[in-house]
């Protein structure tokens, strides 16, 4: 969990009283512990910082020390902090090899007592030049972002974008609908994806996954995985229950996000035109099941998804999602109230409705999404869809594959939250 460490250290170090020695703060202690450790595996260490993409480190001078004997010899490679100029010289400018900036109070040299030795290297080799690349590289990045955001706004205001016949708005999905999910994906659920290579770069495929978690966050995370992390950045077009499209507010957003009604006509139309299609055949039975039945797959509908795949001859990709079961552990279901409200279930979780709106905050479980090997259907021919025995057989095969993968992943998982 390198991310969490990095995030928590920064603010604490800043908050340290100006007179305090860096070593007396907890952050200082942590750093002190790390610096000697950095002495031996300098080459191995930097990869710990890779998950944090925010700090642009193109300016990092690799080996500042001219002599190549035992790299850096215990001295962390220094970096000019990219946001340094605005902060003034009150903070140490050095950056440890693990990518964590030492932000202790600086002396007149611009470094703290611990990093004083950096000064010589810093000033004569990089000092005058180093301002430049940082200044040029950084604004170019945010300028591009601002320009992109403004162009997006202009497109939205003037209606200059395409919506496909299902109502899918790719522009909106990529820039707006997925945006709040990205931090959830990376930092909250820390989703680990496996087997992305099983999803083809082009052409139709039917992704079948287990459903859980009271609200369909698992579907959204799967969509985000394929959009952001698949090499071909594929849009997942999902098939949803008709309730979704009946709800004002939610229905139109669902359509814009690439969902459409789960029916044969739409499934075959999407698959027939080469889209990557996603179904959660357990439906409300899966998403609204009690916590005690977690990771036990429910009935896979009537196998309608299999006949759609058979008719179009596309491969079925079983997808197993671990972690979504624990985000809202449903301990009871108010069936009567749900029936009155016309909802499929009304969950009671440890926090909902006890804590009111706070109950809507999911628990930060650790997620794994694994895409399994595709199950080919082309060899059966389109007529096979009318053979109920075969349809049941394939449905069972897909269900068993997902169930077994779930058990295997659960065994590998160390804990629910890590």
């Amino acid at each position, binding site marked *: 969990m390198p991310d969490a460490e990095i995030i928590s250290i920064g603010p604490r170090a800043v908050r340290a009283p100006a007179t305090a020695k860096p070593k007396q703060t907890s952050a200082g202690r942590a750093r002190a512990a790390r610096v000697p450790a950095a002495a031996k595996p300098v080459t191995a260490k930097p990869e710990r910082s890779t998950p944090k993409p925010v700090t642009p480190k193109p300016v990092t001078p690799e080996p500042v020390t001219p002599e190549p004997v035992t790299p850096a010899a215990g001295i962390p490679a220094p970096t000019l902090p990219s946001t340094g100029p605005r902060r003034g010289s009150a903070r140490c400018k050095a950056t440890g090899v693990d990518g964590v900036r030492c932000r202790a109070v600086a002396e007149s040299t611009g470094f703290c007592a611990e990093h004083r030795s950096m000064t010589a290297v810093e000033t004569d080799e990089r000092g005058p030049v180093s301002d430049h690349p940082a200044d040029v590289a950084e*604004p170019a990045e945010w300028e591009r972002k601002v*320009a992109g955001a403004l162009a997006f706004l202009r497109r939205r205001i*003037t209606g200059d974008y395409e919506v496909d016949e299902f109502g899918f708005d790719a522009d909106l999905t990529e820039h707006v609908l997925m945006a709040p999910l990205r931090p959830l994906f990376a930092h909250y659920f820390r989703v680990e994806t496996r087997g992305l290579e099983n999803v083809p770069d082009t052409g139709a495929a039917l992704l079948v996954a287990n459903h859980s978690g009271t609200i369909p966050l698992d579907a959204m995370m799967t969509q985000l995985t394929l959009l952001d992390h698949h090499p071909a950045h594929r849009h997942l077009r999902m098939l949803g229950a*008709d309730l979704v499209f009946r709800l*004002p507010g939610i229905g139109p957003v669902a359509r814009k996000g690439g969902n459409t009604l789960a029916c044969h006509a739409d499934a075959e139309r999407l698959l027939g035109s080469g889209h990557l299609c996603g179904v959660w055949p357990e439906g409300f039975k899966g998403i609204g099941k009690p916590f005690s039945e977690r990771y036990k797959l429910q009935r896979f509908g009537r196998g309608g998804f299999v006949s759609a795949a058979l008719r179009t001859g596309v491969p079925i990709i079983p997808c197993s999602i671990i972690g979504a079961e624990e985000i809202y552990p449903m301990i009871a279901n108010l069936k009567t109230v749900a029936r009155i409200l016309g909802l499929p279930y009304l969950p009671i979780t440890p926090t909902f409705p006890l804590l009111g709106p706070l109950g809507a905050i999911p628990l930060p479980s650790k997620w794994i999404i694994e895409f399994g090997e595709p199950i080919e259907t082309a060899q059966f021919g389109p007529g096979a869809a009318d053979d109920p025995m075969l349809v049941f057989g394939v449905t069972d095969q897909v269900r068993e594959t997902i169930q077994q993968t779930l058990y295997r992943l659960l065994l590998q998982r160390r804990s629910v939250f890590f």
Partner: protein
Amino acid sequence: MRPRVVLVTGVSRYLGGRIAALLQADPEIERVVGVDTVPPKGDLGRTEFLRADIRNPLIAKVLAAASVDTVVHMNVIATPLGAGGRSTMKEINVIGTMQLLAACQKAPSMSRLVVKSTTSVYGSSPRDPALFTEDTEPRELPRTGYAKDAVEVEGYVRGFGRRRPDVTLTVLRFTNFIGPRIETPLTRYFSLPVVPAVLGYDPRLQFCHEDDGIEVLRRATLEDHPGIYNVGGAGVLLLSQAARRAGRPSVPVPSPAVALVGRVFRRAGLVDYSVEQLHFLEHGRAVDIRRLREQFGYSPAYTTMSAFDDFVRGRGLHKVINPDVVKRTEQTLLGALTRRPGRA
């Protein structure tokens, strides 16, 4: 077989007038007879106009006397305001069609019937597939207004087809017409300075450009195309997107209030609004036009988007939100933000 004598009903309205004008310009057609209850506004050339009500049996005499071989039935009207009330509209639509079909059945010269229908026969509901094909059984049949009339008209037309299998029967289900000249409730809707939308919904709309509509009607009249065809431009526009392309802000109104606002506007004669349009404004409708392309052999020249843009351009709609201003603002903002004022 080329038609010799063509009868066009509903000739005094825009599309009827245009198709009659087109047919009378064809030298191979001997006679074009136009029927309507009101005289046509424009010049119909050599079209013989007959002021008759298709609701009375006179129409049978006309068919027999002129030995009409092709009937283009365009008299299913969508707007109660123009017809003089809902009950009159229903009578013209349903009873009128019954009379016309009864007359056609008795006319031995009949060889082709073209019916202008509408995609509103599919209704609008969240439980339907994204695209309707001609064979889709809608989950909820429309229960009121124009759409219900259209469903009944199609029912009678199917009955006629069974009784006169020798007659080539073409039913054209048009999506909402749009274009620089045609007047429909939807064109008036998008001409409003502020477009009211139903809160929490953003329907998919599909448009048929008037020129494409006329061309399909002409081909259906001149050539044999038995069957039912959806006719419309490719692709869809969302209501919000259409309003933006027309440069109009859209105002979300809660669903019960829409009915109220609609009634007020109808009283004021601004917008022809009826209840089934509320469902349309909530769930929208889009149809599959593959059969039109592949079997009928016509690819619409306009997509939904280009048809709508042509409407906005052709009407010279004053864009409340001017895209040029938006573009300039974007550049000004970008310039201001990237000048890096405080940077050394």
